[in-house]
């Protein structure tokens, strides 16, 4: 018999399962905080990913979405395959040079705010396929927010990467997408 698990550990340990929430001024039956924090909280806990699964990392992603390592716990219950409806592009697997324009096209079709997660060694840097036909990392064509190393990364690593994206999403200012620095980043990739 597996060891008995106790879920209600508040008060008994120092570990907090869930962060308490954004900082703000609490009063009786109200809380005042900044819009950025509330929007960030809402966005990060309901990210809709677009799994751009090409090869073995795609299988690992399927395992992450399964019941054992559940990605749905983090709000990614509804994965969409249409870029128009998703905010997180998860590129998983080897991208060949012939596939590069396709990835770029999918990225361009996404609406702001959008984030990109490069999962696995091939998407981050070409992986073990250092050849004439493989794109050596998707950051040659689109800007990437989080890279998950591994070949393939374990589901726990994928969840860790996803949580880092959630941190980025939660802390993003509402003005970032209109700022000059962001425009410069987009120009360096040739994206309007």
């Amino acid at each position: 018999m597996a060891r008995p698990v106790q879920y209600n550990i508040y008060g008994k340990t120092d570990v907090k399962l869930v962060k308490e929430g954004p900082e703000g001024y609490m009063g009786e039956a109200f809380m005042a905080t900044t819009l950025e924090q509330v929007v960030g909280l809402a966005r990060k806990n309901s990210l809709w990913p677009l799994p751009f699964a090409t090869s073995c990392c795609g299988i690992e992603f399927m395992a992450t979405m399964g019941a054992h390592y559940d990605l749905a716990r983090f709000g990614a219950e509804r994965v969409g395959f249409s870029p128009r409806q998703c905010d997180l592009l998860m590129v998983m697997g080897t991208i060949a040079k012939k596939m590069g324009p396709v990835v770029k096209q999918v990225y361009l079709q996404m609406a702001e705010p959008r984030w990109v997660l490069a999962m696995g060694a091939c998407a981050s840097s070409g992986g073990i396929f250092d050849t004439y036909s493989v794109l050596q990392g998707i950051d040659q064509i689109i800007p990437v927010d989080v890279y998950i190393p591994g070949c393939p990364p374990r589901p726990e690593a994928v969840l860790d990467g996803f949580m880092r994206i959630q941190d980025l999403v939660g802390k993003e200012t509402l003005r970032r997408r209109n700022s000059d620095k962001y425009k410069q980043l987009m120009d360096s990739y040739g994206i309007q």
Partner: protein
Amino acid sequence: MALTYEHIKQRLVEKFGEQVKGFEEPYGMLTFEAPKELNLKVLQFLYDDAELQFRFLTDLQAVHYPDDTGRELAVVYHLHNLTENIRLRFKVFTEISRPDVFSAATLYASANWMERETYDFFGVNFVGHPNLKRILNVDEMDYFPMRKEFPLEDQSRIDKDDEMFGRGGSIV
């Protein structure tokens, strides 16, 4: 009576005489070669003949031998007789300066994409092919990657440690 390699060899020599040569059996599969002008005739003969029905083209590939001047590119056809379960390998050599070989796409439908792949990677020009263009590589690529003079690795990387690849460095 089952078809044997001896019998196939005899039929081929009867029909084509001295032009089919180089009969050998590496790893138990009969291999022979013929001049490139005859490749369609040989394939058609092997297809049509009632006894030698080699009706299945398993593979069509090329090999680059940079040192064999005049015969640098070998186009290799793997044929299979499905009724008797006999396989055959047929090679055609061509020189690299004019790599024209007649296309087997009208005879075998599977040769269509296989010839495109051979063109893409080796530059063999298949005369009479309906749509000879690159199939697996990027369309703008201007060289033929599988030829021996081209490197495997992507040349745009600047962060590689040569030592790890066995080139120079302190571990030679």
